[in-house]
């Protein structure tokens, strides 16, 4: 009796499975019905919604295919955590995709690795035929996409020069009668104000329960880096004949001491070391007991919880000891890079795609969407439909792999303003003013021989322990530097120094 059920079940499932297979193959076949069009397979990490539609079958991709006369097939791995595995196995297989997206912190190392193995196509010779592409992306971004002096990928240049901004609670500033322009200039100013956030009951609830600032563990504590450049501790420097990374400079030690001071005086949230980014919004908005934080200027999570961004005030970082402006230093102007592999039979098709993305038309497509679906043209102006505002921008950006970064000019400015609002655009402008990069790190090439060293681990460990006071910074500093050097740091310094002295930057 039971056996009969088992057999029925198996047959049923076999039927189901065969149906799934045919269905799956069927859709695959219909898309490849046009033999005269060039075909591109693209490995991507598209991890945003497109309202539930298929990555290979939706209005946006169809538009692109028709507009450019290219057949595109995406192989998409949505999770960032698993993307490296996917990338590696695809590159190890004998059917490499035509274009691969290089993502996250490993993007430069991946580019170097694949370029060294001659699995990527050098693009320098092609770029002259695509002026929009070449000129639409700034030099810094192209530098990052190079290996051994040649360009191997098209960078997705961020339209903000740093995604970060520090924000403070507006109500606290008002209650304590603080004017950021006047009162928040130097590091000492910041210290005083942050201390007042703790002692002067800024939320006026009669209780002594507020903190000056918070940070989270997300990333390598980037959120605690408000002051780093103010201490001149965020950029690599050439010192005594060596190109040293910022995290072994004496300025870094001073920054650590300052952070430790904030921590021990309970100005800095004592839980920042264990709480990750997901707690940030509860602390800032729901609880509202934390005065300052550093995060993406877009503030979308904050708004998605129903809060108005005008509750927060964007603030610039304090000036350096010598009075010069400092910035929020970000790791790279590129979010990701699109590399064309040596397996690509029609690289011109790929470049046409990227070139179009950087054009004015491509820009409108990314930021506004499709006419008739996302926006209408009224009196020569692009007006976003109310229910489509801001929808799928991320999707379109990632699908194209590159974007037009000129959002401060028309036609993109007014489109952006409709999505982000005036408040958002102001914060964006401030972010652009306040952002910069660690230039020497950015322009120095990636050395594949350094990949086997686990160099950043001890830095993270030391930084955290120093800030919370688990170690004596002065006593342990030399040991930390020496041990980092021994673990491969010396090798890194040697290679980078050799590059630096022969580079154009040495004479600056």
């Amino acid at each position, binding site marked *: 009796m039971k056996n009969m059920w088992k057999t029925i079940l198996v047959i049923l499932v076999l039927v189901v499975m065969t149906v799934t297979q045919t269905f799956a193959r069927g859709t695959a076949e219909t898309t490849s019905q046009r033999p005269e069009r060039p075909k591109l397979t693209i490995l991507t990490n598209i991890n945003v919604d497109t309202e539930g539609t298929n990555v290979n079958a939706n209005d946006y991709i169809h538009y692109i295919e028709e507009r450019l006369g290219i057949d595109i097939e995406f192989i998409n791995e949505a999770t960032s955590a698993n993307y*490296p*595995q996917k990338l*590696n196995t695809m*590159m*190890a297989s004998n059917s490499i995709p035509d274009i691969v997206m290089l993502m996250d*912190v*490993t993007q430069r*190392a*991946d580019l170097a*690795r*694949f370029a060294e*193995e*001659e*699995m990527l196509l050098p693009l320098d010779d092609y770029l002259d035929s695509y002026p929009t592409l070449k000129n639409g992306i700034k030099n810094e971004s192209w530098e990052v996409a190079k290996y051994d002096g040649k360009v191997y990928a098209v960078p997705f240049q961020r339209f903000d020069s740093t995604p970060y901004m520090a924000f403070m609670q507006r109500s606290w500033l008002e209650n304590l009668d603080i004017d950021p322009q006047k009162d928040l200039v130097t590091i000492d100013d910041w210290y005083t104000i942050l201390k007042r956030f703790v002692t002067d009951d800024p939320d006026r609830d009669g209780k002594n329960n507020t903190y000056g600032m918070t940070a989270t*563990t997300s990333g*390598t504590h980037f959120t605690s880096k408000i002051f780093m450049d103010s201490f001149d501790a965020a950029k690599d420097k050439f010192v005594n004949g060596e190109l040293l990374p910022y995290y072994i400079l004496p300025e870094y030690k001073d920054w650590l001491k300052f952070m430790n001071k904030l921590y021990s005086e309970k100005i800095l949230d*004592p*839980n920042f*070391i*264990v*709480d990750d980014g*997901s707690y940030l919004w509860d602390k800032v908005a729901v609880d509202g007991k934390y005065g300052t934080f550093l995060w993406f200027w877009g503030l979308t999570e904050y708004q998605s919880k129903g809060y108005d961004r005008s509750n927060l005030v964007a603030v610039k970082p304090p000036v350096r000891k010598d009075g010069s402006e400092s910035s929020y230093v970000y790791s790279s102007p590129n979010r990701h890079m699109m590399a064309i592999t040596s397996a690509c039979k029609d690289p011109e098709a790929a470049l046409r795609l990227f070139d179009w993305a950087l054009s004015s038309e491509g820009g409108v497509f990314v930021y506004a969407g499709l006419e008739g679906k996302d926006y209408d043209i009224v009196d020569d102006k692009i007006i976003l439909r109310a229910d489509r505002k801001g929808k799928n921008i991320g999707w379109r950006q990632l699908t194209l792999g590159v974007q037009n970064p000129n959002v401060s000019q028309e036609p993109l400015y007014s489109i952006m303003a409709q999505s982000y609002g005036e408040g958002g655009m102001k914060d964006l402008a401030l972010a652009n003013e306040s952002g910069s990069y660690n230039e020497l790190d950015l322009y120095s090439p990636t050395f594949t021989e350094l*990949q*086997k*060293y*686990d160099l950043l*681990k*001890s830095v*993270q*460990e030391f*930084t*955290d*322990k120093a800030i*919370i006071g*688990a170690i004596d910074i002065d006593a342990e500093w030399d040991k930390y530097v020496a*041990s980092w050097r*021994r*673990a*491969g740091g010396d090798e890194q310094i040697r290679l980078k120094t050799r590059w630096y002295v022969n580079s154009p930057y040495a004479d600056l």
Partner: protein
Amino acid sequence: MFRRNLNRDKYLYAMISIGLVFMFLFRYLPMGGLVIAFKQYSLRRGIMGSSWVGLENFQFIFTHNPDFPRIVRNTLKISLLRLIIGFPAPIILALMINEVRGAKFKKFIQTSVYLPYFVSWVVFGGIVIQFLNPSTGIVNKLIVALGHEAIPFMQEEKYFKAIVVLSDIWKNAGWGTILYISALTSIDQEIYDAAKIDGAGRFQTILHISIPGISSTVVVLLLLQIGSIMDVGFEQIYVLCRPILYGVGDVISTYVYRVGVGGGQFSMAAAVGLFQSLIGLILIVLANYICRKFFERSLW
């Protein structure tokens, strides 16, 4: 003799053959890829085409990374603690559940205890961290209510190992009981009845009937766990360990993830994996021998 056995057991050999084919295809064939531990693996040249470097990868790991001994130590410490405390937990739990009377009540308990198994470490780890939070966590609220100062559990090295092992038990012990409970149901009820008639108490019954009854299962699982002593699960540590705890929490699997996957160092990752497997092999052979000599039970 040889031919006679072959003929006598011909059906048995036929029955096992399909499994052996799968084993060969999906286990032994990929194992050939382990040679990249002795090569400088190049994606373009593939496994066969990459050049030999002998023991260079191993040399690098053991001598050029000053952190490696610490990483191995952390792995061993956590594994041993898991073995000593974590291994008996599902057994004790299963024995306790077995004593419960009332079929519905028993079923309720059984179903409840394996629920945490299904919660992924990403979420479960988040819960653990939240529970131990110095200001908002339940555990510290209790501690403070009892008059002591809040303890920042996730910031101090001394608590980490215990947190890892205890949270592991919390999450997985319930699921582990399933096997033991099914083993316990295989014990003949008559033996229990006879023992009761003879006047045996609860504890004696457990000691002399229940435990021996599941001993073969226990031995298999114990030996297998000993074999994987160099392999502390990646996900749990990744979620629970913050840089500040790297000193005690960085284990082999997290190290390999950072450098092997993140840095694309496949040869190195393979070398570390081989090292882990070899240690596991030595240990399991030893343990198997000891089991066979002293307890007359073994894997082979």
